[in-house]
């Protein structure tokens, strides 16, 4: 008796379990598919670092607050090139990009370091060749910047790069290894344009320059202009008075057909245009990178503080 009972019981169980699983699978697949095909939903892609992530979360909050659209943020796309590919393939519909990306030969451009011209060329080129609407800048750029300790800047009255010319011979420069050899905007061209040669040059990993200057091992370093460590270590960036570095102004970018289908987005996207200056972005990055907080929370707090979100 026992022998006959056992297999039947298992079989009954197996059928019940497997049918439950099958129903679950069908529901899950439906949910998955309906999630993808929804035209009322957009995906904002971001690069791997903090500021595009924070901004993407700001737009998510603003768009969901002011329209009936749903937004998903897809973070950690390896590089700006990957982000651009994803936009072109319609894997994502919106992102933040930097105007200097056009220097990487996406379409023919006229070489210049003029901020307005680079931005305009990006707007026209990506509209024509990629079907993307490239907005005006948020109001900050993320580019290379010569950086000194605050106390040195105050003592020597340093405001722009040309100010260091007389002292350069006695200064120790810390730079990203690749910048030393770069053609176009590397050290060799820098020397030509500014006529400045530093006493000693120390190539290193770019992440190390911040600590090196903060601990007085360097006098001047080439850093990224919106890095949170500028605030952490109280560093001051010098104005690039000869416009040597190519401009990397950050702008929201969206697929044109999405904007046409949802004209209400225009107004929401405009809310951040010209509203985020370098200092604000450094502060926001500081919360995420130094205080180790989640970008969603940082974005929400900021929007509430400036009154864009209740």
């Amino acid at each position, binding site marked *: 008796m026992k022998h006959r009972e*056992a*297999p039947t019981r298992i079989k009954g169980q197996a059928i019940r379990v497997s049918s439950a*699983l099958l129903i679950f*699978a069908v529901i*899950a697949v439906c949910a*998955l598919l309906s999630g*993808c095909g929804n035209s009322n939903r957009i995906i904002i892609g971001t690069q791997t670092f903090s500021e595009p992530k924070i901004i993407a979360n700001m737009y998510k909050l603003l768009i969901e607050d002011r329209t009936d659209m749903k937004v998903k943020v*897809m973070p950690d796309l390896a590089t700006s090139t990957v982000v651009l590919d994803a936009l072109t393939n319609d894997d994502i519909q919106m992102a933040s990009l930097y105007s200097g990306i056009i220097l990487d030969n996406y379409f023919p451009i006229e070489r210049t370091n003029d901020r307005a011209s680079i931005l305009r060329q990006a707007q026209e080129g990506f509209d024509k060749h990629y079907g993307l609407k490239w907005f005006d800048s948020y109001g900050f750029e993320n580019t290379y910047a010569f950086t000194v300790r605050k106390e040195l800047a105050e003592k020597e009255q340093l405001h722009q790069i040309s100010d260091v010319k007389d002292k350069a011979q006695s200064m120790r420069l810390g730079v990203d290894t690749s910048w030393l050899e770069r053609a176009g905007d590397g050290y060799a061209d820098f020397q030509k344009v500014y006529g400045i040669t530093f006493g000693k040059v120390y190539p290193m990993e770019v992440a190390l320059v911040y600590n090196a200057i903060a601990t007085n091992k360097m006098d001047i370093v080439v850093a990224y202009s919106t890095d949170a460590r500028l605030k952490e270590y109280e560093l001051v960036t010098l104005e690039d008075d000869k416009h040597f570095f190519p401009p990397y102004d950050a702008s929201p970018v969206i697929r044109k057909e999405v904007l046409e289908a949802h004209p209400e987005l225009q107004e929401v996207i405009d809310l951040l245009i010209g509203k985020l200056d370098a200092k604000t972005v450094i502060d926001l990055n500081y919360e995420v990178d130094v205080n180790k907080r989640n970008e*969603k929370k940082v974005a929400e707090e900021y929007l509430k503080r400036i009154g864009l979100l209740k």
Partner: protein
Amino acid sequence: MELFFRYVRENWVDLLVFTGQHIMMVLIGLLLALVVGIPLGIMASRNRASARIILTVANIIQVFPSLALLVLLMVAFGLGTTTVVVGLFLYSLLPVIRNTYVGLTQVDKSTMEAGKGVGMSPLQIMLQVQLPLALPFMLTGIRIAAVIAIGVATIAPLVGGDGLGREIYSGINMNNSARLYAGAIPAAILALLADLALERLQNATRVAGR
């Protein structure tokens, strides 16, 4: 350590959502593998030639590095969760097929003869004799597949997928170890739980089947 607790306290809702997404991806991938893999395993057990082809193909899929497989799939399916689910499905195939195959072929010939003797049709023998006896083996396959899938699912963000890997990658990219652990620890716990739960189920069927 303090940073980790503060991070988890502030973001536990998101972490729960990521855990849910993680479980969903693994379950869907695994279920698809069962739906496809069990019939393939049955086919393989009935005929030597088909066994060789099916097992070889499944083996080839398995030895593909997970990262390479996902990136290849991304070319076909684009960025997103679909790519990850298909990858997990492919990865779960071999353990399911192989263990179904082994389970079915280890059933004693005499047991099947006995089934034939009492007048069972081949379908009845398969459903009422072979499959119940193969069940513990098949569960081994599912157990292996589940643990592998939970691990592989953590690289989902590389192809635009969701899940706990999100926190792991953000942690790496933004040099935030609190965040890395906030993703890695739940993923490890998930794998352990899945392993334990399936082990218990396996033991239960073994006892019942004896």
